[in-house]
């Protein structure tokens, strides 16, 4: 197991399937790295110098050596390890060959960028380790085991106003008022009244007169008067029919809905 590469721990908790254990040390080693950058960082650390002073050429050689050995053992390497190997081989050739001044980016820049990346990954790995080593709540320090808790009690502030109160009482009182059914006196003219009125008005005149002339006079404003007028007309009509039946009057109507004319029958008893 390489220094710096943490052992694969099946109890680790990250929702990922545990690594397949094959018993092949090298395979396990490679599996233990989180990608080629991780492997490079580990190799760089083995130079036991500050990451700012690592030898990129040496690092490239070590990485390529690792990949070669893995291939010699016919291990299947993930594609990104091979891509990195190819890129590092290219970088190495650029660094060793006479340089082309126009080349962008320069091999030095590529090497420096790789170094910067390794420093950043190294810094975060260290920071993570320091975080995990702190006095952690629930592991090293504990909050109160049985806090009473602070309960939130809801209290209702009831609202009502005086008008609503009085109105409610009014509604109750209304519901409870004894119910009395009163038939209202209606403005009507009875048949008897119409008979009496027509008999009196007929008198002794022998002229034909429109039945409507016998209706009682009434104001023409207001619903009550209109109702009385219709009632008077109906009653007077019935009275006219009744008088005709008794042989006291004769009736003439020239056309449908035309004026109904009435006169005392000649020779009738008064």
């Amino acid at each position, binding site marked *: 197991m390489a220094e710096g590469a943490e052992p694969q721990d099946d109890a680790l908790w990250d929702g990922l399937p545990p690594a397949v254990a094959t018993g092949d040390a090298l395979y396990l080693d490679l599996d233990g790295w989180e990608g080629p950058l991780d492997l490079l960082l580990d190799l760089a650390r083995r130079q036991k110098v500050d990451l700012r002073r690592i030898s990129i050429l040496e690092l490239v050689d070590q990485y390529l050596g690792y990949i070669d050995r893995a291939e010699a053992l016919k291990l299947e390497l993930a594609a990104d390890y091979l891509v990195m190997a190819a890129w590092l081989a290219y970088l190495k050739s650029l660094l060793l060959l006479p340089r082309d001044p126009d080349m962008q980016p320069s091999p030095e820049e590529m090497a420096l960028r790789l170094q910067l990346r390794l420093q950043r990954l190294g810094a975060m790995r260290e920071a993570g380790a320091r975080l995990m080593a702190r006095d952690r709540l629930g592991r090293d320090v504990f909050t109160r085991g049985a806090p009473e808790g602070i309960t939130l*009690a809801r*209290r209702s502030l*009831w*609202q009502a106003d005086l008008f609503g109160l009085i109105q409610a009482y*009014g509604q109750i009182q*209304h519901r409870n*008022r004894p119910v009395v059914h009163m038939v209202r006196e209606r403005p009507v003219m009875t048949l008897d009244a119409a008979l009496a009125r027509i008999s009196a008005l007929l008198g002794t005149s022998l002229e034909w007169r429109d039945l409507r002339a016998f209706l009682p006079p009434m104001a023409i404003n207001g619903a009550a008067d209109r109702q009385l007028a219709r009632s008077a007309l109906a009653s007077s009509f019935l009275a006219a029919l009744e008088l005709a039946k008794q042989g006291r009057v004769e009736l003439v109507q020239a056309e449908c809905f035309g004026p109904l004319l009435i006169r005392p029958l000649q020779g009738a008893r008064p």
Partner: protein
Amino acid sequence: MSAPDDLVRAVEATLFAAQEPLRADEISRHLGGADVRAALALLAEHYAPRGVHLVERGGRWHFQTAPDLAHLLRREKEEVRRLSRAATEALAIIAYHEPVSRAEIEAIRGVQTAKGTLDVLMEAGWVRIAGRREVPGRPTIYATTPQFLSHFGLSSRADLPGIGELRAAGLLDPVDEAYAVLTGNREEDADTPDEPGEAD
């Protein structure tokens, strides 16, 4: 008080983190067999004037907030709520007829009154139990409170308008009938849905 020694601190932390009250021998076992009785006594003394006390109940020790501060553990949140129609009617009946029993309220309202309705009125502080009526069954009777008067801006119950005034104000007219008068099958203008209770 000088800084507590390590055993006192250990007992303190153990009891603080414990999920249940612990017997002295349990604490002792937990701390490698040390005699913790002196430490418990010291801690109880130290916490006596504080907001948290160390108490022994049936041989088990635990921390708890000081009894005089128990009210701090309840936080109240106030919610404004309108009185329901049923509660308003019940309140009106109590106000006009007090003291009344629930059966009497129901007789006047013409409908059953849920127990919760009276509870709400009592919770609001407007109604109180005023004793029992000395009739068979000795029913509880209810009356209004001084808070009722102040909430509704009344100096006394005599300020409540009488039946005559209610009628004059149209408040005895049922809402729907008053409305029908205005909008019903008269030939007059049928499009004046005025305030109910206002017409005639």
